């Protein structure tokens, strides 16, 4: 159990590290690669939890994750990246966003403190990291201008929520999990269509132009 606790905390921190990469890299490809590795880590953690908790359903979840988030979505992302070009325009420069992310993770630790006291699960060490991952993904969403990078932020947010579910409750029932996956996939597809539409209309993926519509 001690090993399980260590490994889950390690996996969670690896996922958080991978969420920090987009904050200072400047290409969509780097974003997509970070997301792929993050999903792979999440799948590994889910399988690990399945092994240690003896919950066979979690293996199915891990397999789903592997298929959807490590293979399918990164491919779609790569295709969109090729079509729209790779430069990104953040609202915040790299240094500010990385430092903000650091503060957000500190905040997550403070918020999660009562949770840590209440929980007796061996995985509880990773809970603040999962919360931190959620906050950092939100930061990615709000601080980037291009629709494509916001989509990746959304996908990382989804990873963070899935991580929190695995760590805090050993995963939600399979039916719910499948529902969430379908939601995420549908959401991603809808966003993909939006991205294409935005690009068709404005010849750019800069979402700032959307708010200037009213002029």
């Amino acid at each position, binding site marked *: 159990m001690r090993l399980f606790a260590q490994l889950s905390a390690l996996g969670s*921190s690896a996922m958080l590290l991978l969420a920090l990469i987009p904050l200072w890299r400047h290409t969509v490809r780097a974003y997509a690669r970070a997301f792929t590795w993050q999903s792979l880590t999440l799948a590994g953690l889910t399988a690990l939890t399945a092994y240690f908790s003896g919950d066979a359903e979690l293996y199915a979840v891990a397999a789903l994750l592997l298929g959807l988030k490590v293979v399918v979505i990164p491919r779609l992302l790569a295709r969109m990246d090729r079509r729209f070009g790779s430069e990104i325009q953040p609202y915040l420069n*790299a240094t500010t966003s*990385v430092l903000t992310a650091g503060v957000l993770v*500190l905040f997550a*630790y403070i918020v999660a403190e009562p949770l840590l006291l209440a929980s007796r699960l061996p995985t509880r*060490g990773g809970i603040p990291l999962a919360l931190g991952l959620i906050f950092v993904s939100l930061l990615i969403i709000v601080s980037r201008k291009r629709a494509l990078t916001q989509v990746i932020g959304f996908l990382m947010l989804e990873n963070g929520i899935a991580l929190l579910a695995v760590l805090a409750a050993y995963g939600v029932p399979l039916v719910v999990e499948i529902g969430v996956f379908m939601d995420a996939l549908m959401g991603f597809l809808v966003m993909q269509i939006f991205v294409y539409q935005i690009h068709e209309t404005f010849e750019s993926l800069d979402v700032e132009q959307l708010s200037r519509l009213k002029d």
Partner: protein
Amino acid sequence: MTATAWLAAVQTLLAVGLAPGLAGVVRRLKARLQGRIGPPIGQPYRELRKLLQKEPLVAHHASWLFRATPFIVFATTVAVAALVPLLAVGLPIYAVGDLIVVVYLLLAGTFFLALAGLDPGSPFGGMGASREMTIAALAEPVIGVAIFALALTADSTNLGRIAARMLAHPATAVSPGHLLAFAALFIVTLAETGRLPVDNPSTHLELTMIHEAMLLEYSGRYLALLEWAADIKLFVFFALLANLFVPWGLAVTLTPLALAVALGALALKLGVLALALALLETRVAKLRLFRVPELLSVSFVLALLAVTASLLGR
């Protein structure tokens, strides 16, 4: 002299003697990865021998500082090499200086090197010195904060004790705090030893050089000492990364067998780190100088998270 004192002396000599070899291994690995044959591993030793035999030339305007700096830099680096656990934990010499002393001895060397870069008044030297100080100012808080992450889990800043503590509690080695601190210190190692994303160690011709720019006025045995000190610095940082974060193999008892195992383990760990460095230097291009602070801010945040994880997550 007691056995432990002998061992400490041998350990230090080992670091000083093997450091150019490590630099040679990195160069060789890098060349092979890039499809070149590369110089033999002993090449740095030959360069040092050649430089030591040559007469040093000193600029007319240079003050005593210029002559003293190579010795100061070399002495501080060797002193640091004496304090880092290479083969055994629990040697009495580790009580002389802890992690904080190690960091500031290295920084003292950097400080004098920057002064010496300014001293002869050549434009390159001044530029290199100002860049080196910028990077040092950004890297220093990272080292400080990352150290606290280690010191918090070990309840001590003593290097030998940190390693011994982790040997006794192997589970702490894979805690999030340690992982993040390792990542932070690895980035700082690249910055402090002038490796690729921050500085290019194998060029004298670019306007972007940092470390080499400060050494530009040096020749002969002065240059040999500074080059040697740079090699030892790389060795020391690698040894710190290897033995503080992955201390397995370090001798707890002073039997010949344990020491032989420690030597083998050290060689293995340094080899792995050298390979990682060569791979990284082959894969990445040098960062623009203005992006270096971004990289170091990433490592600062990693160190900050490491402390948070060690403090709140235990």
